[in-house]
Structure formats: structure tokens, C-alpha cells
């Protein structure tokens, strides 16, 4: 059973052809790479920064940096993973600038071991997303993920929203595979717990669920 699907379009070999053409100075090939990944970069950036303007800046800065450093890209990893690493760093820099009083780092300490242990076990409605309108649901999901520490929500968005593998996520964030897995578990459990407030089964009249 896999809950994960990859949101990326096009095979890796096509990506490599575009990257090689872009390296030779073919700007239309680079533009194609922008077209291919701009939505992903924007989503990742907005999840991390939680700010639309910052996310727009991150998209521009990440692609411009990728363009300027294309010669250094070794082609041993996927271009997309390399691009995501640039975008995540740009997004974290935006966060640091906006919240200088708080240390923003992917290495921040995880508060306590029990932080994300399930406390609320009540089951959800069968189709929780249908309890709300599209815009209400968007607000709930957005507010809920905002409550996670940046290091957790970054891992969650790369793995579960964008569909990167654990290894790709580790490479993009320069974390170990066990660190990615541990953060992912906590992120998933914390989101589950918080969403439960909105999605729990309503009590029926006889006191049973």
C-alpha cells in the first residue's frame, strides 16, 4: 500500500536532455524546465514561507540561481532534487528574515519524544473533506500545516505533497534518511491530530458514534 504518488511530469531522461541543452546555452530548454517545475517550486515555497509574495520571490530566485549555477550541476542527482534544495534554502532564508527572533533551521531540536504521540483517537467522518466547502477546507489545511515547525512541514510537503522519495528528500534537505523518516512520522501524526478537531465523527443522539 502506498499513499504517495509522484506529482512530477515527464521522465528523467527528458529532464536530462533539457538540462544538457540548457547548459549549452539553449534558453528555451531552460524555459521548459521552468514550465515543468514552477508549480512544484511555488507550492513548496508557499508551504515553507506561508506567504504568497515570499513564495513568488522564491520561485524567481531559485530558478535564477539554478540558471547561474547550471554548469556546477553534476547530473548525478535529478535536476529537480537539486532545484528543490535551492528553493528550500531560499524559502528558509525568507523565513529567517521575517522572523529573526526565532531560529529557523531544519536542524531545530525536536521538543520531546512524546510530542506527537496520539492523544486523540476518535475516528473521523467517512469523507471528512466533504464536510466543508473547497475554500473552507483550503483554509483548514493551510492553518493546520502552518502550526508545524518549518523542519516538519518541509519534510511533509516534499514527501507527501510533492511525492519525492525518502532518499530524494534527504538529499534535497541534506538530512539523513532516519532523520527524514522521524520528522515525517511526527509531521504526519501532528497533522492528523490537529485535523481531527475538524474531521471527527459527530456524536449521534444515542451517545454512540
Amino acid at each position: 500500500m502506498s499513499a504517495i504518488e509522484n506529482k512530477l511530469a515527464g521522465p528523467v531522461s527528458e529532464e536530462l536532455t533539457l538540462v544538457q541543452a540548457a547548459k549549452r546555452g539553449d534558453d528555451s530548454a531552460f524555459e521548459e524546465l521552468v514550465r515543468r517545475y514552477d508549480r512544484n517550486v511555488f507550492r513548496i515555497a508557499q508551504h515553507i514561507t506561508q506567504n504568497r509574495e515570499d513564495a513568488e520571490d522564491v520561485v524567481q530566485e531559485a530558478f535564477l540561481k539554478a540558471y547561474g549555477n547550471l554548469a556546477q550541476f553534476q547530473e548525478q542527482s535529478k535536476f529537480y532534487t537539486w532545484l528543490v534544495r535551492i528553493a528550500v534554502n531560499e524559502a528558509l532564508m525568507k523565513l529567517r528574515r521575517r522572523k529573526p527572533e526565532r531560529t529557523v533551521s531544519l536542524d531545530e531540536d525536536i521538543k520531546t519524544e512524546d510530542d506527537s504521540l496520539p492523544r486523540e483517537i476518535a475516528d473521523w467522518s467517512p469523507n471528512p473533506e466533504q464536510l466543508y466547502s473547497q475554500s473552507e477546507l483550503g483554509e483548514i489545511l493551510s492553518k493546520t500545516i502552518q502550526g508545524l515547525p518549518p523542519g516538519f512541514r518541509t519534510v511533509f510537503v516534499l514527501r507527501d505533497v510533492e511525492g519525492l522519495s525518502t532518499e530524494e528528500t534527504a538529499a534535497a534537505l541534506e538530512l539523513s534518511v532516519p532523520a527524514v523518516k522521524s520528522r515525517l512520522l511526527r509531521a504526519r501524526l501532528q497533522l492528523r491530530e490537529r485535523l481531527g478537531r475538524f474531521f471527527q465523527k459527530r456524536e449521534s443522539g444515542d451517545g454512540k458514534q
Partner: protein
Amino acid sequence: MKCSEFLQELTNYLDGVLDDNTKVELENHLSWCHNCYVVCDTTKKTIEIYRDSQLYELPEDLRSRLRSAIMTKCQQHKKRGPQSV
């Protein structure tokens, strides 16, 4: 399998990367432990809801604006040389 062990394996289980023996143990645990079953099921739903959400979709007009800004800056960078990024 104890509930704490189930939690340790939950992420691997949801990602479909558990070895067969552990998977059988975990599913056996889920068959009698209602709490863990609910945690597993609602965690899976959490992932699906976020994955399927249209959260932070890039609108087409903004998308083309950003793309043309990126390409303009790339061309300026090319003219100025590699020190400008």
C-alpha cells in the same frame, strides 16, 4: 506487536516499504487494536487530503508573469556574465 512498536513502523507501512514479516505483525495488531487502526486510517487520510488538495496552486496569469520575469533576468545574467547571480 505493541502499540508503540506499531507507531515506529507506521510511516514505513504507509509508504509500502515494510518487510513482509513486520507487515503481517502490524496488520495483525491492527485487526484487534481499534485505537491503532483509527490512528493508521486517519493518518492515511491526512496524507491523502493534503496530497489531493489544490492548496497553493499557481494561477496561470501569475505563472506566465513569473516565467517571463525569470527568463528576462536569465538573459540579463547571460549578458553580464556569471558573477551576477
